[in-house]
């Protein structure tokens, strides 16, 4: 178990990590999700022991390891760049952490071959990394992390530099391969999709803070604040500022949404409503949905999905629709959404449904 207690890290005047508390269980898969510069790498460096926090403490299985250097922590890390020893063969690369530990020859040979087998590197053991493809280079780095039998495995956007096919393949294999080791597995990514595909737990990071931490699917479905919802939406979250008067949320005269019964107790005032792009329906049928008219800006078609960018009131929204839909710019289309999918945030950015659940 790895525990961060109120950890902060500043370099000079810039704060990289601010008051992060996080508990990661052994054998768990944890995703750090956040945009570039959200502090994912900084946090990983603190977890690894490459950096010492400016404030707060780090505990492993209840023991304070805050000042303990990385060499004595049994940590493995894989980076976005493919980092291998350039002059050593793939075999020697995978064996290197074991050699440093002083493991005997037979064990090294067995472990290296097993890791190579799992990573499908067996035919390349005698080659040097730079003569391999990017995917094979990263597999080498992963195999090196694997043989180490580390208790904490940190993967810092390991698939970002790989092409699409390889990414899917490795993303599927990675959790399985490391799951059996019982290690704490931390995976940093900028892509909400990747977090959802990996499952496990997700910590949403924003500007050096943890916006929310919990089971990935829970975090995705029930963001506790606007920051978490925004970070976890791809394409971007559709938001609209509204004013609650009585039993209606209204945006000028353009949109009126009935306040759900469960939220009747809310005081009148300013709120933000939000909808995930796939929760907006084009040309809705049936009266169950709230309807509104929006003007089309541009339509992007990916093949199986269409992204329709529209302008509504003073907001710009994106709709993610299945199939190929084509609209002319300036065309006015009717949109609908289910009230149950509506996310409602107070003026302070906290989700009103989750008032009781405290943001981590």
């Amino acid at each position, binding site marked *: 178990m790895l525990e961060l207690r109120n950890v902060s890290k500043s370099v000079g005047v810039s704060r990289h990590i601010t008051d992060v508390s996080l508990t990661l269980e052994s054998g768990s898969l944890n995703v750090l999700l956040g945009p570039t510069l959200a502090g994912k790498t900084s946090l990983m460096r603190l977890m690894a022991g*490459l950096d010492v926090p400016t404030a707060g403490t780090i505990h492993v299985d209840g023991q304070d390891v805050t000042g303990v250097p990385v*060499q004595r922590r049994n940590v493995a890390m894989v980076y976005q760049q493919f*980092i291998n020893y350039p002059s050593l063969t793939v075999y020697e690369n995978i064996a290197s952490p074991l050699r440093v530990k002083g493991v005997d020859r037979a064990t090294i040979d067995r472990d290296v071959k097993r890791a190579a087998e799992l990573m499908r590197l067996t035919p390349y053991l005698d080659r040097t990394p730079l003569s391999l493809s990017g995917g094979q280079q990263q597999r080498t780095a992963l195999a090196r992390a694997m043989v180490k039998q580390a208790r904490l495995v940190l993967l810092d956007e390991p698939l970002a530099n790989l092409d699409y096919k390889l990414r899917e393949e490795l993303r599927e294999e990675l959790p399985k391969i490391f799951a059996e080791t019982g290690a704490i597995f931390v995976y940093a990514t900028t892509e909400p999709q990747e977090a959802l595909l990996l499952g496990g737990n997700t910590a949403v990071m924003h500007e050096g803070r943890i916006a929310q931490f919990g089971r990935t699917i829970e975090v995705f479905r029930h963001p506790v604040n606007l920051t978490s919802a925004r970070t976890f939406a791809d394409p971007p979250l559709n938001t609209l500022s509204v004013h609650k008067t009585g039993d209606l949320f209204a945006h000028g005269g353009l949109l009126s949404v009935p306040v759900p019964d469960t939220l009747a107790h809310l005081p009148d005032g300013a709120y933000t409503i939000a909808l995930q792009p796939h929760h907006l329906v084009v040309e809705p049928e049936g009266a169950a949905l709230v309807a509104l008219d929006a003007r089309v800006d541009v339509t992007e078609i990916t093949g199986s999905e269409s992204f329709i960018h529209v302008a509504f009131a003073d907001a710009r929204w994106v709709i993610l629709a299945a199939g190929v839909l084509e609209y002319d710019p300036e065309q006015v289309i009717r949109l609908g959404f289910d009230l149950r999918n509506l996310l409602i945030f107070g003026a302070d950015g906290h989700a009103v449904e989750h008032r009781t659940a405290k943001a981590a």
Partner: protein
Amino acid sequence: MDKTWNNKAWFFVLPVLLLVAFSAVIPLMTVVNYSVQDTFGNNEFFWAGTEWFQQVLASDRFWESMARNLLFSAIVLAIEIPLGIVIALNMPKRGIGVPVCLVLMSLPLLIPWNVVGTIWQLFARTDVGLFGSVVTWLGFDYNYGRDTLDAWFTIVLMDVWHWTSLVVLLCYAGLMSIPDAYYQAAKIDGASRWSVFRFIQLPKLNRVLQIAILLRFMDSFMIYTEPFVVTGGGPGSVTTFLSIDLVKMAVGQFDLGPASAMSIIYFLIVLLVSWVFYTVTTQPDEDRA
């Protein structure tokens, strides 16, 4: 008659042709011309064939100078390359120290070669030079104008002072291009300082070092100005390198034929070595990335 149909093309090519002709072809052909003829002045020339080449290649004087050149290059490379790496490894990576070190390192490179020679000629003198008098004061019998070893020591020291910076700057640039993640990965692996150097820094410096060795070999093999200013090739002829010998023969003794033949041999050696290095360094290898 339409003779101007390609005038425009000539207009573009001509400057280059003229430049190359005056800077390379004409001087070289003049030397070739001298190397196969004999002259007694008055612009009278007699065909000599390969006589001068045979004479030069058969002379001890040529081979002795050649041996001195090779020895000098070997010593200089053996000192400057490792020293350059060590200094580059120990230079600061960030902060105010970086520009300070870079400027200090560049200074020797900015000084004209004959000035370097003059500086060291004075610096190493035992009567007025700081270095010479300190060494003498320490009890060493030092005189670069009289003793073979002292002369070599002075010239090598001068070259190291002058050119190690080049190796340092090349290596420093190479080191700075290694992503930080490599060092982190090594740290996580628990690799020692030596392992980091041996398995990360040295392989990553491979290419830079090849260039450094080529440049330093070529320059040291063609050395002329500095030893000429400091020792004038002496004492005796112990610091007479090929280039100095060449000038003695051509300008001092006015033996234009043998001197030209020697120039051509010298030129071919340099060309050959450059070609070998070029082939080796541009060979497609896997360390390209």
